[in-house]
């Protein structure tokens, strides 16, 4: 169903790797909100509502939305939180603007790294009887998915290595960093992951009237949005497929009224390169039979037909909990022409994929355009 009012992204703050320990989490959140508002050219007084997303276990707090109310300007404002995923905060913010009851929303997610073991924090998210004792963390679940893909698709490992090489090259051009290879779980090699870092991301959403009233020059219009979940038990899933992402993509493309071939630029949550491969298929960018050819002809590389992860993706920066919302913000900046060194020249229609949880349980697809409609 079409949204009653069309939201647009009018400001972003992408902070994929916050170094140093001189800022508290509250200060990081405040900085991020101020940067997003500055990018939108508005002030906190213009914000009607706030949606945040964070993970209690990573934050070491219960109900970590609470501290956000002061740090993000929530006092005497409407603030909600979607701790299921950072991308869900975007979804809810967009729905609130689309309802016509809010002109603007500030959406913020953060992901600190102070927890003594992120793996153990993630393991608490496994069901206590079956998965937790495996033991299972998110990378282990991604590795099971990688093994399933390798089993089903001959040559998948070489393709995964090619995806990783592409994203590393993009990352090196986009951001002045040398990412540290992450932990590994067979068959996911260290070269296919990056070490979790502290990060935060902020997005400002507004409706058309607000954008017009403020003379926003470069809104990224929400053309389509879809989100869906897989079953929770890994044993109930065929990990070599991504049906929830297929459903999310169906929702997004149906709303946008365009085909995947119309997309100029994409960001995919490459928790591992195998998840990027599965996303190519579910998003309609390339079926598994076409993966090898597209990686060889450079369709998804800088300068290719539809560059994927010009930001370098999760392989370049891995603020675990915010990676989904960062993908959306990166696409917003691409279609706004504000992506900086990794801008795809002339990008008018972008696709963001956000996935999270064990073996990408939660899936979302967001299509943003420089033009309000096709």
């Amino acid at each position, binding site marked *: 169903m079409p*949204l009653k009012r069309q939201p647009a992204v009018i400001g972003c703050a992408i902070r994929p790797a916050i170094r140093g320990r001189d800022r508290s989490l509250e200060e990081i959140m405040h900085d991020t909100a101020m940067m997003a508002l500055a990018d939108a050219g508005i002030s906190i007084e213009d914000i009607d509502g706030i949606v945040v997303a964070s993970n*209690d276990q990573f934050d070491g707090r219960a109900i970590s939305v609470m501290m956000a109310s002061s740090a993000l300007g929530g006092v*005497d404002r409407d603030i909600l939180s979607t701790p299921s995923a950072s991308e869900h905060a975007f979804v809810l913010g967009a729905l609130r603007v689309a309802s016509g009851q809010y002109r603007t929303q500030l959406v913020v997610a953060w992901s600190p790294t102070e927890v003594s073991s992120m793996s153990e924090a993630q393991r608490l*998210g496994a069901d206590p009887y079956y998965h937790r004792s495996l033991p299972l963390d998110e990378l282990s679940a991604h590795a099971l998915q990688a093994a399933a893909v390798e089993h089903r698709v001959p040559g998948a490992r070489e393709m995964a290595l090619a995806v990783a090489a592409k994203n590393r090259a993009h990352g090196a051009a986009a951001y002045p960093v040398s990412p540290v290879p992450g932990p590994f779980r067979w068959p996911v090699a260290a070269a296919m992951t990056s070490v979790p870092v502290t990060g935060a991301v902020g997005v400002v959403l507004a409706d058309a009237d607000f954008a017009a009233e403020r003379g926003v020059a470069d809104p990224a219009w929400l053309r389509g949005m879809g989100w869906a*979940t897989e*079953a929770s038990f890994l044993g109930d899933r065929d990990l070599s497929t991504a049906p*929830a992402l297929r459903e999310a993509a169906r929702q997004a493309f149906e709303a946008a009224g365009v085909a995947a071939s119309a997309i100029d630029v994409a960001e995919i949550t490459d928790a591992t390169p195998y998840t990027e491969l599965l996303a190519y298929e579910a998003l309609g960018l390339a079926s598994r039979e076409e993966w090898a050819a597209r990686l060889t002809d450079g369709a998804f590389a800088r300068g290719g037909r539809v560059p994927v992860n010009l930001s370098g993706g999760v392989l370049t920066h891995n603020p675990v909990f915010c990676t989904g919302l960062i993908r959306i913000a990166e696409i917003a900046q691409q279609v706004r022409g504000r992506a900086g060194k990794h801008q795809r020249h002339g990008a008018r229609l972008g696709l963001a994929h956000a996935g999270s949880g064990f073996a990408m349980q939660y899936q979302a697809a967001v299509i943003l355009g420089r033009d309000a409609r096709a």
Partner: protein
Amino acid sequence: MSGDRVGIIGIGQSAFRSRRDDASYPDLVREAVVLAMADAKLDFDAIEAIVYSLSPDAMVGIGNAERLGVDAVGGRNKRFLRINTGGSTGISSVAAAYYHVASGACDVVLTAGADKVGECGDSQTVLNKIWDPTYERALPLGTINMLAMSAVRYMRNYGMTQEDMARVVVKNRRHASLNPNAHLRKVVTLDDVMESRLISWPIKLMDCCPQSSGGAAMVLASEQFIRDNHLDAVWITGLAHRAETYWMGDRMGNNPTAEHADAYALRRSFEKSYKMAGITEPPKQVHVAELYAPFSNTEFHAIDAAALCPPGQSVPMMRDGMFELGGWIPVNTSGGTLCTNAIAVTAMARVAETALQVWGRAGAYQVEGARVGIASGNGGDHQIFGTMVIEA
């Protein structure tokens, strides 16, 4: 009325208990979902999205425990997200479901959740972790002593006594005795409350909500869908959220946001909800209220904030029985949070009970002729407030 309202078409609630050893956490969610779906007379295929209602992960001992609830709510390959605003989570989830429909994205949305507070060990140990680890956690703060401080302040400002607090308990327990789903259903006397064990002065054991286990679920739909399918519904005509500061230390100052006796943001949220619903004189237009009050003293400032009376007048009006069943504006006719608190869905139950009242389906605790009702939820450290107006 325009044709794009959002209606409530199905409600399901557990019979809340201290423990539910017979049911796992997802089982409890499923229990409520089955009841709500039967009430809505819909098949799961009609559900386009799910909003999952779950407050702190630590209460169920599983990180992102909503992931385990996906199957219980029939969520596979459907739109699904979780809301957490602490104690207000339930009403925030209904609000999020409302936005799914009001935005035009979906016609039919399910919101559901459950909690096992009675089996979590000690909820106050968990709830201490909601505070900042460096400054306020170490006091140590819990939700009881936090609201005991509010009670002391309310006593000073408005003349509330411990007997006034006990009156709220007696009233709500009597209401709960009529509600088969309520957890604490035993009728108590003023003396029973006054003689109960001191927990954090002036709050005594019977001034406190129980730790409950159970689930709740609701189905919301667009007016178009409801008309096309000839369904029965009540309508969410006003809703809002407002927040206060995180810091307890910032509740002590000379501006309205710092008055810990009152519920400033709750008042602001009600103002916005009333405006949306076109309610200009709440005492004349509201027939019934379900106000989130986990401790007896907090019902007073909730009534004040809902503008059902001038500030502080809730105390003498309570003495006169004006908020009892059969009184002027019955408050917490289900027994309220004081008699049942399964935190993840407590504020959803406030919405559900208000909906049942204006629907004329509240059974033994029905308020005759109720057509307009209000509901509220409080979350965080008395910080995040959600409010709704529901009309027949």
